[in-house]
């Protein structure tokens, strides 16, 4: 048990180091979300607080969705096949997928928080219940990372990973996105928190399903 935890933390460390050494990729992601927010801001040509809450909320989650797909799509393509083979001789596939998912979760949480602060900065912040909104952001980031990591593993095996990643992940992510949109709309309107409990539990359940499936299915995926 302690050994597997050690291996997991070593793998996590490797992911962070790798990202730190290729800082252009990380900076690229940060710039991507900032740029996307700014493009939306200029395209709507909106002064602060002019968007209706629904548009404000939906637009933000769409930006986050595209950022997530772009950020997570590269989690299997940035390392060469030979090196991946080497990892597989060192650790079990379950640990590899788990470390990738955990790393992507951390990345998505950073991106989501950054995106939210810039978005609120330029477009105004109509959120009434900020703690619940932040909780939704965390839940959404975790769910996106969990479900997209396996999809990116699948897409990376095919010949046109970029298109396939989008085609495969849009429908898969939709139930999660709808739930998260609903909770964040509740937070935006400042409704009582008990209203959102059902949705929060469902998001957690979907996350659990997706994590378990990634854990079970990834060993079959890497063999090819």
């Amino acid at each position: 048990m302690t050994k597997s935890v050690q291996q997991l933390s070593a793998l996590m460390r490797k992911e962070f180091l790798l990202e730190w050494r290729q800082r252009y990729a990380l900076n690229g992601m940060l710039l991507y979300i900032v740029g996307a927010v700014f493009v939306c801001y200029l395209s709507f040509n909106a002064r602060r607080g002019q968007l209706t809450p629904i548009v404000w909320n939906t637009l933000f989650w769409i930006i986050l969705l595209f950022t997530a797909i772009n950020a997570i799509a590269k989690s299997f393509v940035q390392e060469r096949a030979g090196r991946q083979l080497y990892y597989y001789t060192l650790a079990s596939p379950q640990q590899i997928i788990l470390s990738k998912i955990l790393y992507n979760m951390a990345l998505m949480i950073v991106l989501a928080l950054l995106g939210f602060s810039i978005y609120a900065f330029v477009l105004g912040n109509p959120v009434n219940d900020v703690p619940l909104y932040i909780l939704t952001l965390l839940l959404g980031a975790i769910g996106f990372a969990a479900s997209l990591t396996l999809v990116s593993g699948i897409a990376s095996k095919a010949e046109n990973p970029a298109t396939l990643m989008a085609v495969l992940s849009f429908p898969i992510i939709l139930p999660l996105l709808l739930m998260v949109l609903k909770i964040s709309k509740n937070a935006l309107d400042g409704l009582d928190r008990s209203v959102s409990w059902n949705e929060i539990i469902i998001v957690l359940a979907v996350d659990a399903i997706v994590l378990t499936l990634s854990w079970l299915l990834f060993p079959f995926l890497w063999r090819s």
Partner: protein
Amino acid sequence: MNKNWWKALAVLILSYVVLKGLLGVVPRQPILNESIRNVYFHVPLWFAMITLLLTSAVYSIRYLRNGRLGDDLVAVEFANTAILFGLLGCATGSLWANFTWGEPWPNDPKLNCVAVGMLMYLAYLILRGSFDDEQRRARISAVYNIFAFAVFVPLIFIVPRLTDSLHPGNGGNPAFGKYDMDSNMRMVFYPAIIGFTLLGVWITELGVRMRRVKMALDD
């Protein structure tokens, strides 16, 4: 006894369902009127589709466990038939919606979720198309198929029940069987589910045999 008795059963049940569905006596309900007959066709199609998708996922699991290419062929044919049934379900549903809800595609969560589910399985077919190597294609698409089914179930059964839906049994509406169906209708409705499922299995079996023949010819 020969092995084809269930095909005869499917033909018998479906003829019974079509005859009873078009000519039988149905209760008169406000708004629904005669369109209540669609319950014999629209609802069983969806039931059959979900059964077919479940079978497809089971065959994908079997493929991952033992690596026989035959299981993968069965899985993809079940998914194909399920997509066909889904399209037919959409068609019968939008006919029905046109008369009872006023428009062929009302903005209803169940409809939209099903459309997304269809997209998911169309993506499965596209994924299959992007591999040349058979074993690789089979393994990766099996992984996606299981994953997709696990997302499909909450999409169809949980999301529409949480929001306001026009469909019976969703969003606080009573289920259809509670008030609208009488025991005469049940005598047709339950056989219809079995009949359409058997028809789906039959179509799938033909598709699998076609694929086997093609594979044998290629070798």
